[in-house]
């Protein structure tokens, strides 16, 4: 149970760490094969790009979880902490809504790519597009997690 909990808490990090390792190795291998053996890999650039698509959407979810997502807070710095927490509840509900709308369409993208394969590796494109869907669904969950945290801040009766 503890292990599952740990894996869930670090899900994006684990996946992203693995992905960037594979990208680095594939790209390094390409340089070696092309320059030293004059025998280029035909799949390495395509693999890297597709993994990068996964990376982009997984980092969305990671940055919400790690609270590193970028927003402009200059205009709300004056607000008391509880008011800001209240605003955050609305903001992250809004985010979850936008991600939900996008994930419906990410799902369409997976569904409509049935039967299509990538040119170099012959990889089903659905596998590529599952990345955005996964990232968006995780982002909804992480946003709602953030909403719950901020709600606690609003309710908590401590001096501000």
């Amino acid at each position, binding site marked *: 149970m503890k292990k599952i909990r740990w894996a869930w808490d670090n899900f994006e990090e684990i996946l992203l760490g693995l992905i960037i390792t594979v990208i680095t190795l594939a790209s390094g291998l390409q340089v070696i094969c092309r320059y030293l053996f004059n025998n280029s890999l035909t799949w390495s650039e395509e693999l*890297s*790009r597709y993994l990068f698509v996964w990376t982009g959407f997984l980092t969305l979810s990671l940055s919400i979880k790690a609270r590193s997502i*970028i927003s*402009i807070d200059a205009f*709300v710095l004056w607000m008391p902490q509880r008011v800001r927490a209240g605003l955050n509840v609305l903001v992250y509900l809004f985010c979850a809504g936008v991600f939900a709308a996008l994930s419906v369409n990410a799902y369409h*993208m997976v569904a409509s790519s049935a039967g299509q394969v990538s040119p170099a590796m012959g990889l089903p494109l659905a596998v590529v597009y599952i990345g955005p869907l996964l990232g968006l669904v995780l982002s909804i969950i992480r946003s709602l997690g953030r909403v719950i945290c901020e709600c606690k801040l609003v309710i908590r009766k401590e001096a501000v």
Partner: protein
Amino acid sequence: MSLVLFFGVLAILLVLTVPICVSFAFATLLPSLVNSDFPYTADAAIRSMVSGLNNFPLLAIPLFIIAGVIMAKGKISERLFNVFSYFIGNKTAGLPCAVTITCLFYGAISGSGPATTAAVGSMCIPLLTSVGYDLTFATALVAVSGGLGIIIPPSIPYIMYCNAAGTSISELFLAGFLPGVLIALCLMIYSYIYCKIHGEDKAKLNAQWQELRSRGLGTVLKEGFWALLSPVIILGGIYGGICSPTEAATISIFYSLIISLFVYRTIKIRDLPKILLEGVHSYAPILIILSAAVAFARVITLMNVASVVSEAVLSAISSKVVILLLINVLLLFVGMIMDTGPAILVFTPVLLPVTEALGVDPIHFGIIMCVNLAIGFVTPPMGANLFVASNLSKVSVIEIAKKAVPFILAFLVALMLITFIPEISLFLVK
């Protein structure tokens, strides 16, 4: 849908602290929500976001960020910096100037502004603060100097511009060298003024410098040798025909790993997961904004923002000087809200015919455009270097942007010289 309403909603979302990527994503959905005939739907938005990431040259950003973390952990940065400090560490503004020079140096390795900021910032910000410089100043310095990454070739925006304008990439690359050096000079002059006004912690600086001097030039150079060699390896990789600019980022990861693990022995194999994790956390907040910016740019294109805005600006005026000034203002504004790549793709076809009619060389205009957009790297809300730098130092984007204002003014001085003295760009080309 009216442009006022469109940008109004976007501004309100941003002010209410809705994350930038979400604000941009929602703005792309907005026109089709208001008017069901608008052809750009949510389906199209997600396609654009995916295709924005399905882009090989962008991979250089996370890779250079990870290489930067390795260089910092492996103390490669420290040794490289020691060599610079050995010579100018006791001079006024010596170290801030060394940062700008390092960005100039790194610009010749990296084709991207944010990647340069990441690579140089992760090594220089801790160093500057440890000898007493203000953290926000150090962060702003790196964020602005990181713009040199796209002015000094190789440069991904130059390649995009040439693609859109049909001009020669090799000529534009050559044209970028002198403007890059000029901008670096202007930034260094401001660093000097800043240090004169605010003073420096001479005791700390001198202690560090004396300690360094006591080790002797031979030792410092010997210790710094492998670090100094790293740009040589990476540049040599590109210019020696071994790797593409994006692959150079991979080379820099492997090179810095090998040096840190086996030569300097500053990191151990078991440190690698931590280094990787730190890298992942550094680039996490950036990538999705670049992706959302692509979708945003499509909507801006379909709403004809480029032609509406530029026609409004250009209709009444016929003076070349005034029009060039106005184009600079327009591009500075564009740089505030759009990322470099999409901005180049949207505005080159609109503005190039105007400047060509005025007799401005397309190569020269490419430099003007990219210098403007390099300034845009540090202007909120859409400032890629700000985001990267803010991540490195944990100073808020707005604080960095405030501290960057004088640097931006120095950059603007360079921009004016570059705009009105075409020879700065064209001297090496012709």
